[in-house]
């Protein structure tokens, strides 16, 4: 029992240290999302925008959009779920993942934390709990704002929206836990940030360019972005296969992170 409490204290210390991100990221994103949904009535009948997006899928793909920009799902996808929301979530989870073990070890805090009665595995789980707690409000704030969009002629199916809200948190955890694992394996916050950000960028490009480029289309299934929002899940719903891929990847990465944390030299 005492050790569970100890791990919970580790989570709470990290969250307390980041209480500003906990508040301001969701707040900032909520403001942005509200502006996006409130603008929809102005753009929904814009035929120029509609034809641009329908005639030039490569250009749209570069911006992470596919299909019609003026449909409700197209609008929310192009402005929120295929680019900005994942970007913010990944900023939060990758940033925290890199500092949670490697960063704290570099600045010397981890030695004190690791000599509390927590095992390395519990330490990793405590950090991932904090990561999830940082990511959920960002996605939840977007969810609420898109719901508000119903008053702005922007009806998004509630089931699909809930699915995407969860999937985007899982997407954040995929790269956040990867960042944590790379940090534990290399002991370097910079490596964790760099390697994970590079991989995330590659995966983002695969998912967003898949509709436009044939050979990218063939490898789209390797991208976690494709599992979360890239395949048009906001319209069609997040499938069980998508969830399984996201959760499965997270579980594998947690196992890798624990193994790396056990080998980690703490100063």
């Amino acid at each position: 029992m005492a050790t569970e409490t100890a791990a919970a204290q580790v989570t709470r210390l990290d969250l307390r240290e980041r209480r500003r991100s906990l508040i301001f990221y969701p707040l900032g994103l909520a403001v942005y999302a509200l502006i996006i949904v409130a603008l929809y009535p102005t753009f929904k009948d814009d035929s120029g925008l509609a034809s641009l997006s329908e005639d030039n899928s490569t250009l749209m793909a570069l911006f992470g959009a596919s299909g019609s920009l003026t449909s409700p799902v197209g609008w929310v996808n192009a402005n929120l779920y295929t680019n900005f929301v994942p970007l913010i979530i990944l900023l939060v989870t990758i940033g925290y993942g890199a500092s949670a073990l490697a960063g704290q070890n570099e600045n010397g805090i981890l030695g004190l934390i690791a000599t509390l009665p927590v095992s390395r595995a519990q330490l990793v789980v405590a950090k991932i709990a904090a990561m999830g707690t940082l990511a959920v409000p960002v996605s939840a704030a977007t969810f609420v704002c898109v719901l508000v969009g119903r008053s702005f002629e922007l009806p998004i199916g509630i089931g699909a929206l809930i699915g995407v809200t969860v999937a985007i948190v899982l997407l954040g955890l995929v790269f956040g836990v990867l960042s944590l694992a790379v940090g534990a394996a290399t002991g370097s916050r910079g490596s964790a940030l760099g390697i994970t950000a590079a991989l995330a960028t590659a995966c983002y490009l695969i998912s967003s360019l898949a509709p436009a480029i044939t050979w990218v289309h063939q490898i789209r299934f390797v991208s976690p972005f494709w599992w979360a929002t890239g395949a048009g899940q906001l319209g069609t719903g997040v499938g069980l296969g998508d969830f399984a891929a996201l959760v499965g990847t997270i579980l594998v990465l947690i196992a890798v992170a624990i193994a790396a944390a056990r080998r980690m030299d703490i100063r």
Partner: protein
Amino acid sequence: MSAAIVAERLTRTFGAHRGVDDVSFTVREGEIFGFLGPNGAGKSTTIRLLLGLMRPDSGSITSLGFDPIGDDVALHRQVGYLPGELAWFANLSGGVILERFARARGLTDSTYRDELVARFEAELDRPVGQLSKGNRQKLGIVAAFMHRPRLLVLDEPTSGLDPLLQDSFARLMHESADAGATIFLSSHELDEVQRVVGRLAIIREGRIVVTDTIEGLRRRAPRRITLQFDRPTDPSAFATLDGVAVEHADDHEIALSVTGAMAPVLQCAAHHDVVDLTAPPTDLDSLFLSYYRDDDDGD
């Protein structure tokens, strides 16, 4: 008395860096054990090995009977650790941090914690990032001692503390040891260690060069003798004696460093016309420095 820490032939290297090499020592339960060496000698590496923060390349270590890697949770429950380069969450106050640490250790009674806070006048309200080194150190002391651990591992504990607080801290160590705690005290300063420890080990370039009591060290410390003569005297007569080194010689004065028995030196001196003889009290500092500096001694 049983052993609190047993290190056997511990070796850990970091690429080209040394780390520690074939380090063995035993710390008895309830003693204050000094671990001395210059910066970069391997003190902190040894501490990390005994706490399970790192794994040795070879050799073994048990702390309080536990394997620090396999039984880390059980060990850490009974350990208080004060790191050498103490860092905290910069945005949090000392009060918040101590509260979380106390809960993590299942500590419900805050009497002793409050007493320590009062004794060291620890600042609990301001964010730790705004505190001076000394004030951060005070929080580290409270965090290390507040749960009355069986083993205290202290890495340069009084750095940043003023002399008054250094005294308070020495008293706290004695009290804790009297109450049965074992203290592993690492430092690069003889002064910090000399007045509190029973035994100590000196580590240099990753290897332990000597393990002894302060008294034992004093006994084996080289004594410096200065002899004065009324006419020029050849120092070679002294140089051939066992355990005697001529440190300095001119026409009328010879300074010797003596590690062996004193009688042969006096007999030899008696054959010459000694006008004066001075032998200052044993200087532990110079002994200590000799362990730091010498390249071939002490293996």
